[in-house]
């Protein structure tokens, strides 16, 4: 299937070079996320959300004239070099009017300059690093919250709501994991808490018992982890085997039901997680989306709804623009006002970040992530 898409992109590239811009029946939306490699599981979840949005729109009929939509998925393997290659490929294809992607902050950042130069709109469904929108690219948009909301929200919750004062931090040394852990660290200390230790681990590693043996001797009241769930699942299991009883907390990267399955419900009990927005299962307005998604693809991925929303924002803009023109579509994305997404209304600020995107705090109870509270960015004035 992927080679088919590759061929399609290549083919349309050739037509472009020959200057034979025929009247077309399809308008294309680029999509880039890790679809193979060690983060394929999240990328595929976002892709399924995106596919559903495109299919929903096509069922309603042509978007304008006799033009229908087509999604062009590419893989960046969560590798910034591959991300740039994919971005160049999409930028060179005149049928691609905008891009949904990428997933990892490092990739999104690397590719954003290329989309900017090609005057293509880019909407990221999941990259939370705050620096990306500070580059001054008017083509960049994001529909999720950023880590300068998420990290402090978690720290505030631990300090004020749980009343804990002594914690340890572990991160996975990636742009995302370390960035989030540093935000948490800074906020927790500024609130007056003590960070007993802040260590890094390597992604893909399996044995954390040496580090955990050390952390155990410091007796933290809670351990915050900046990273993604496969590592957290091992950390939790190994810590319990060592008799380390402190609860764990992570960010949106650990918010996945697979975490509970991997750790087993009884051992994951009491683990906290922040998530961008709230659990779609708890939202009455998201019920239709969740039901249809799960009927189609099985369990919903933690970012699938963001993929769905991002594509819908773009589709709506294409519809309003009414033509295959990158500038026109870009203008219409910027004009987005009160767009009804799965997680409520979407508006963009002048940097392209979604306005007022809140962070939800969750706790594992009875084998499920239970929604505890919502932290709005305006509540977090340092």
């Amino acid at each position, binding site marked *: 299937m992927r080679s088919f898409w590759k061929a399609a992109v290549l083919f349309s590239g050739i037509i472009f070079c020959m200057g034979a811009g025929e009247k077309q029946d399809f308008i294309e939306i680029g999509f880039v996320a890790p679809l193979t490699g060690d983060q394929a599981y999240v990328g595929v979840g976002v892709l399924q959300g995106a596919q559903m949005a495109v299919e929903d729109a096509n069922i309603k009929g042509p978007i304008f004239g006799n033009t229908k939509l087509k999604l062009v998925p590419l893989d960046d393997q969560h590798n910034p070099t591959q991300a740039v290659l994919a971005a160049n490929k999409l930028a060179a294809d005149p049928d691609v009017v905008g891009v949904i992607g990428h997933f990892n902050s490092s990739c999104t950042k690397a590719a954003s300059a290329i989309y900017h130069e090609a005057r293509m709109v880019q909407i990221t469904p999941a990259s939370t690093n705050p620096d990306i929108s500070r580059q001054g690219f008017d083509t960049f948009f994001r529909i999720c919250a950023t880590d300068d909301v998420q990290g402090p929200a978690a720290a505030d919750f631990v300090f004020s709501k749980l009343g804990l004062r002594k914690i340890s931090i572990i991160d996975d040394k990636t742009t995302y994991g370390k960035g989030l852990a540093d935000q948490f660290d800074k906020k927790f200390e500024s609130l007056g808490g003590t960070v007993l230790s802040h260590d*890094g681990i*390597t992604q893909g590693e399996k*044995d954390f018992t*040496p580090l955990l043996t*050390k952390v155990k001797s410091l007796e933290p009241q809670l351990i915050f982890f900046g990273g993604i769930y*496969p590592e957290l699942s091992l950390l939790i299991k190994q810590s319990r*085997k060592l008799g380390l009883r402190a609860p764990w907390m992570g960010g949106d990267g650990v918010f996945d039901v697979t975490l509970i399955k991997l750790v087993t419900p009884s051992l994951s009990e009491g683990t906290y997680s922040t998530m961008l927005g709230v659990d779609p299962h708890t939202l009455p307005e998201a019920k239709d989306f969740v039901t249809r998604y799960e009927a189609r693809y099985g369990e919903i991925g933690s970012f699938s709804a963001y993929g769905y929303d991002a594509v819908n924002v773009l589709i709506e803009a294409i519809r309003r623009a009414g033509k295959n023109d990158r500038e026109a579509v870009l203008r219409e994305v910027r004009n987005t006002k009160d767009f009804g997404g799965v997680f409520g209304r979407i508006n963009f600020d002048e940097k392209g970040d979604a306005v007022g995107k809140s962070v939800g705090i969750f706790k594992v109870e009875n084998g499920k992530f239970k929604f505890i509270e919502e932290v709005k960015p305006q509540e977090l004035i340092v």
Partner: protein
Amino acid sequence: MSNQFEIFLQQLLNGLTIGMVYALIALGYTMVYGVIQLINFAHGEIFMVGAFFAFTVIWLFTSFFVGAPFWIVLVSIIFLSMLGSAVLGATIEKVAYKPLRNSPKLTALITSIGVSFFLQNAVMLIYGSKEQNIPEVIPMVRFDLGGFSFSLIQLIIFVTAVTLMFFLTWFVKNTRLGKAMRACAENAEAAKLMGISVDKVIRVTFMLGSALAAVGGSLFGIYYGSINFHDGYLAGLKAFTAAVLGGIGSIPGAMLGGVLLGVVEGLGAGYISSEWKDVFAFVLLGIILIFKPSGIMGENLPEKV
């Protein structure tokens, strides 16, 4: 003070456990290198596929033979994943390396990287890209030895690894096939002239190495409780380091290298910094190679790849 000593023993034990797994994988690297001077980069992937064989066998047991005693489950896991991986190893050798027997060394090396990508992606397509959960098949029994403790699965890892190492040493020293293997390692041309079927020896070497990696993979999966299609990469890299550390081509060297690597990593991560865990492994490798370029037990200088 005594508490400090207990933590030290615990860290040592943690390191030894993972070191045993490294050693099992390193044996395959070293044996293949010994016989055809090929660094088989697909070996880490065979380890991963072995873990997935184990996962499949466990799945069969938990869905169709509920309540089977754990040692039957364990023996079936190890036996079937060894068998599966041995067949896989022989197939890879036949399809990917045998046609390149007389090509430059680099061609086979790059082919092995290709095989590694192929296996990773094949497993991803079959089992999916998510982390797979391995249900606990070994009862959670802990043995307390005054202060520090170890679990049944750790004991099983030790016993299995040590038994296999003894078996391998005996096999290579005393059987006809083992002798033929050593002859091929010494001088393949001469061995051929003496009537040894070099092709058969190479095939058996791949099968043995793959079976050992599969045992490592199965125990690894059961110990950590989750596996993923990219687990072979890091484990393979570590085991390769262990093989070079011990002296590539040397069987006791691979065992020693694996155990040493596990212990150094464990103690380094526990006492200095877990962020630098991989650094300790490679610093150790650097130091050993400066003073003994052929590795701890290596006999001659390895050829450059």
